[in-house]
């Protein structure tokens, strides 16, 4: 179903295809628990990781996913490349494709650059985050983390909290979460919302206290300081007052509910120090699970895109 296709936006996948990716992720989770955490499935395939923006977890996650499937990986960081000598993006991409790679994983700081690249090349692309636009593999791994915890999506209430304006994660997640059957709401003050947020068709609240006691999943967005040309929020104190997940709010959370964050966490802003470090959070904080699941989700995607499907 996914053979040879690119994944640029979360809505490139139908609900059925999302189900297929999550089901395959389960199989790869099992591989990740083996003593030898490697299968020969993609031997002979080459994957290029092209990151025009810094990244720790997404890049290493894709690299590890490819290696655990026995694919070869070339890593390409824009800061050390010929782009510095003035080579155009398309020429750079063409050069990499001439090296006979089978799939590109690309992150770029500007929304829409990936669409532009995808129009010029035939090699499948996975979007590892483009500007404020989309981060579909994050949405998939978050959905997978929620599915593993609750066993289902239907009827779950999810609050996505924080810097919505600058977040590609939020855009991918609201779309995908709603489509698989979760009830999504946004918690953000007006200055951290895009002007067209109403098109998402989900309710918006302005303070975390309005939702904290009745949602199943609290999804904290990272404050994207690097994308804020001017300061968008008056002060950290004000953020703490309305949006930060602190111990007091953690206490109010519904039984069995969980906290997700795409990382890296700005400690003391989205989540307080004591919640990050404390045992009080218990097993509510699923951030480490998200990272582990990310590898399995990316293995599933690489596998499904790079293999030919047989009619069942």
């Amino acid at each position: 179903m996914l053979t040879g296709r690119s994944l640029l936006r979360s809505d490139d996948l139908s609900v059925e295809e999302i189900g297929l990716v999550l089901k395959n992720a389960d199989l790869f989770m099992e591989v990740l628990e083996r003593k030898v955490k490697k299968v020969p499935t993609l031997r002979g395939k080459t994957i290029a990781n092209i990151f025009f923006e810094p990244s720790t977890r997404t890049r290493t996650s894709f690299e590890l996913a490819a290696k655990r499937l026995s694919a070869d990986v070339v890593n390409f960081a824009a800061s050390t490349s010929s782009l510095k000598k003035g080579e155009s993006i398309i020429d750079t991409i063409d050069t990499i494709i001439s090296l006979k790679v089978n799939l590109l994983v690309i992150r770029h700081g500007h929304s829409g650059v990936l669409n532009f690249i995808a129009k010029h090349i035939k090699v499948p692309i996975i979007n590892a985050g483009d500007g404020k636009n989309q981060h579909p593999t994050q949405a998939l791994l978050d959905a997978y983390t929620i599915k593993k915890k609750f066993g289902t999506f239907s009827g779950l209430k999810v609050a996505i909290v924080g810097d919505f304006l600058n977040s590609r994660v939020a855009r991918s997640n609201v779309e995908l979460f709603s489509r698989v059957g979760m009830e999504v709401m946004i918690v953000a003050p007006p200055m951290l919302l895009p002007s067209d947020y109403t098109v998402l068709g989900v309710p918006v609240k302005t303070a975390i206290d309005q939702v904290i006691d009745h949602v199943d999943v609290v999804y904290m967005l990272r404050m994207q300081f690097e994308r804020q040309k001017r300061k968008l929020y008056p002060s950290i104190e004000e953020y703490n007052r309305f949006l930060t997940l602190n111990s007091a709010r953690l206490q109010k959370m519904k039984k069995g509910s969980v906290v997700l964050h795409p990382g890296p966490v700005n400690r003391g802003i989205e989540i307080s120090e004591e919640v990050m470090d404390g045992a009080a959070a218990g097993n509510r904080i699923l951030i480490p699970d998200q990272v582990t699941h990310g590898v399995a989700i990316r293995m599933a995607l690489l596998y499904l895109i790079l293999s030919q499907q047989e009619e069942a």
Partner: protein
Amino acid sequence: MPIKEKALVMGPEDIVRVLKRISHEILERNKGCQNLVFVGIQKRGIPLAERIAGNIRDLENQIMPLGKLDISFYRDDIGQKIKSDIQVTDIPFDIKDKDIILVDDVLFTGRTIRAALDAIMDMGRPKTIQLVVLVDRGHRELPIRADYAGKNIPTSLDEFIDVKVREIDGQDKVTICSKQ
């Protein structure tokens, strides 16, 4: 492509008898069941492995460890074709120094078994791996053979063997079919 059933080669009672015979052969060759573990290959190898393990439990009064193996990640034809309905692999025991009874429904080219051997070797170092198949239809492309075969059924390449098991298909039977 329409599929034509050409001949019934095994009915439910034949399958029961064959699996009983194989269970005895396994016990005979291994001098008991002390070191045995069972691994069924997805999908139809698993109910067959369960039944043999069940026979041995009845004979020796001992419960046999039973694992499931899907070999899709180890296939040698990636880039050609891949199944979209991959099943779980679940081998909940240590295979080190064990005698593994590997069970599949049909032995044909030997490529599935080659993949299964690689998958098992990545999990540890068993003492032996012994292969059980319900049907050996010939046409090997690799130097692989069954240690215990239910029935040898010579086939032509345009035929195939259809194995049905009651746990999955609701009935037990083996037929030769042809695509036409």
